[in-house]
């Protein structure tokens, strides 16, 4: 199909789609007047029932914690799939990367990036840990905090190079951290069985509203999710970095070896 033709086909179909979806949207509540019964009920009872002040966390890690477990498994499956897709293959080492062609040198990391990469990881890590550990009180959560912690570690790569990054970050430990996070979540859920409750029932004491140790297992589950997500995202980033940097290095070594012959 010619590009210009496909453009017009798209415009016609998109116009029809817009018309239909606009008809569908017209039947919805007006913006700002939503009155869904679940949300209203949860806003009324969640704080008194569980003593945690962040109702979004209470929904995600208590009332619908099974969904969050599914989410964690999606993350895990995706990381497993990516490491399978980006595994090292034999034929790859025969290609020559463009950067390694004679007469081409890559520029050094700029001083500004180095300085900020050294300054910020500590602060960002602290902020991520705060997001994880205060999820039941203020806006935050294990997923968000985990990603922030991972970005602090990735800044180390940005400021230095991949060799130093891989010497600081131990992949085996990261895998262990992810395993602890995932299995901790499930074991917390299973532990409720031994008390005669249902899966992921909030079995810890709820505490006083607004105090740090409140909300029962919400804090515990958030810590586990934070561990799993931060480990998982760093593994994910490492998989991509390895693909672009390490494989090319081995290719370059193969090339240099063949030159000597």
């Amino acid at each position, binding site marked *: 199909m010619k*590009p210009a033709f*496909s*453009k017009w086909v*798209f415009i016609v179909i*998109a116009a029809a*789609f*817009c018309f239909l*979806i*606009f008809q569908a*949207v*017209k039947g*919805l*509540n*007006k*913006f*700002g*007047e*939503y*009155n*869904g019964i*679940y*949300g*209203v009920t*949860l*806003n*009324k009872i*969640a*704080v*008194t029932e569980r003593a945690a*002040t*962040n*109702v*979004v966390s*209470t*929904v*995600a890690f208590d009332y*619908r914690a099974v*969904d*969050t477990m599914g*989410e964690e498994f*999606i*993350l895990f499956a*995706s*990381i497993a*799939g*990516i490491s399978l*897709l*980006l595994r090292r293959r034999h034929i*790859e080492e025969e290609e020559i990367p463009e950067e390694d062609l004679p007469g081409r040198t890559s520029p050094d990391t700029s001083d500004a990036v180095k300085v900020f990469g050294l300054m910020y990881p500590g602060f960002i890590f602290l902020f991520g840990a705060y997001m994880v550990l205060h999820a039941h*009180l*203020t*806006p935050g*959560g294990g*997923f968000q905090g985990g990603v922030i912690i991972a970005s602090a570690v990735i800044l180390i790569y940005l400021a230095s190079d991949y060799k130093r990054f891989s010497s600081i970050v131990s992949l085996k430990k990261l895998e262990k951290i992810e395993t602890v996070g995932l299995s901790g979540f499930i074991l917390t859920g299973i532990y409720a069985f031994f008390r005669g409750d249902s899966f992921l029932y909030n079995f810890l004491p709820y505490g006083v509203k*607004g105090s740090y140790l409140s909300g029962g297992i919400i804090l515990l589950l958030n810590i586990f999710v934070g561990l799993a997500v931060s480990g998982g995202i760093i593994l*994910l980033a490492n*998989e*991509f970095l390895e*693909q672009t940097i390490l494989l090319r290095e081995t290719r370059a070594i193969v090339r240099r070896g063949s030159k000597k012959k």
Partner: protein
Amino acid sequence: MNSIPYLVTIWLFVIGLYGIVRSRNLIHLVNCLTVIQSSTCLLLIMIGYRTNAAAPVFKNLPEDAKAVDPVVQALTLTDVVVGAVVIALLLAIAIQAHKQFNTLDPHKLSAMKG
């Protein structure tokens, strides 16, 4: 005036779809998918909005304060996480496609190699 947020969602969805249809680069195509995903996030957040209501965090609020819907916000969290991992997986597939065919143009990927 009340339908403007819905229009924004539809616009984001359609413009992302247009990008996917007209894309000549797989990385660009994945970026267009993030635009579509952000339209679904916006729709969820927007549906739960209530005028003059606070966020559903009762740290400094009385317990009977009017707050927006927490269920759709928890759903948006799922949406964001699933969106992020799908994009990571698609980028990995793009890398493999580039290795296999030496191009990122989706129109040239269909050529069979045998």
